[in-house]
C-alpha cells in the first residue's frame, strides 16, 4: 500500500517537541492541534483529526508497535471508564485555564515572566535557554511556556501509558479525543447502543 502524506505527520509532532527546546515561541504552533480537531468535529461532525491527521498518535503507534516499546497489555478498566475520561477532561481544562490566567497576569503586568516548563502540573523544569527576549510582550512568551508545558505533559503521559499498555492507550483518555467525540455525539442523530451479538 502506498503511504499518503498524512501518514508522516508524526514527523511534525516530533519536530514540534524538539523545536520547543530551542525556541519556546514555536509552542504557539501547537494551537493547530487544538483548533484543527475541534474545527473538524464542529463543522463535519467527525473525528477526522484522530482518524487521519493526528501526528502524536502516529508517533505512539510507531514507537510502540514498530520499535516494540509497548508491553501491549490491556488498558486498565478504570482508565477507559467514562468517569476517568470525563474527569481527566475537566481536570485538563481546569489546568489549561489556570495557565491562561497566569499568562493574563503577565500581560497585565501583575506578574513577571517565569521561564519554566511545568511537567505533570507539578515539576518546574528550568527552560530559560529557549527564550532570550524578543520584540513581543513577555506575555506572548508566558503563553508559549505554558502551552509547551501542556504539550510536554501530555506527551510524557502518553509515552508512559504506551509503554505500560497498548501503543495508543493515550487516545483513550486524550482530552482532545474525548472532547471531539463528545461534540460528534451531540451532533449525531442516533445514540449508540450497547452492541454485543
Amino acid at each position, binding site marked *: 500500500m502506498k503511504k499518503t502524506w498524512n501518514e508522516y505527520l508524526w514527523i511534525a509532532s516530533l519536530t514540534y517537541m524538539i523545536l520547543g527546546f530551542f525556541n519556546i515561541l514555536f509552542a504557539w504552533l501547537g494551537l493547530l492541534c487544538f483548533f484543527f480537531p475541534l474545527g473538524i468535529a464542529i463543522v463535519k461532525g467527525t*473525528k477526522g483529526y*484522530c*482518524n487521519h491527521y493526528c501526528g502524536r498518535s502516529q508517533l505512539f503507534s510507531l514507537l510502540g508497535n514498530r520499535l516494540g516499546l509497548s508491553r501491549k497489555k490491556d488498558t486498565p478498566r478504570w482508565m477507559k471508564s467514562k468517569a476517568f475520561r470525563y474527569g481527566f477532561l475537566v481536570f485538563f481544562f481546569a489546568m489549561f485555564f489556570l495557565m491562561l490566567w497566569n499568562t493574563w497576569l503577565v500581560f497585565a503586568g501583575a506578574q513577571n515572566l517565569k521561564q519554566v516548563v511545568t511537567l505533570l502540573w507539578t515539576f518546574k523544569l528550568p527552560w530559560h535557554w529557549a527564550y532570550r527576549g524578543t520584540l513581543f510582550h513577555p506575555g506572548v512568551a508566558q503563553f508559549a511556556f505554558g502551552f509547551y508545558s501542556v504539550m510536554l505533559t501530555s506527551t510524557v503521559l502518553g509515552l508512559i501509558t504506551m509503554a505500560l499498555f497498548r501503543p495508543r492507550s493515550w*487516545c483513550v483518555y486524550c482530552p482532545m479525543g474525548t472532547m*471531539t467525540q463528545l461534540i460528534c455525539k451531540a451532533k449525531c442523530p442516533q445514540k449508540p447502543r450497547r*452492541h454485543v451479538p
Partner: protein
Amino acid sequence: MTAITKRQRRAEVDRAVCVACGCCLKVCPLSAIEVYRGVYARVDQRRCVGCGMCAGECPAGVISVWEVQA
C-alpha cells in the same frame, strides 16, 4: 445427517464504550472497519474476515471476535 455449516469469524465493536480513536481502521487489512460520525467504529460484516488485527490494536479493548454461522 448433519447439515454442513461453515464456521467463520467476525469482529464486533462494543459501540457504547468505543472512543472513536480509529486505531482499528489503520490496521484492518480489508478496510472493513470505519468510524461512524466520530462516535463509534463499526465493522462491515460482509468484508471482515475475523483476523483480529483490530482487536489487538484497540486501546480501549472494545473489539471482540466471534464465531458466526455462515
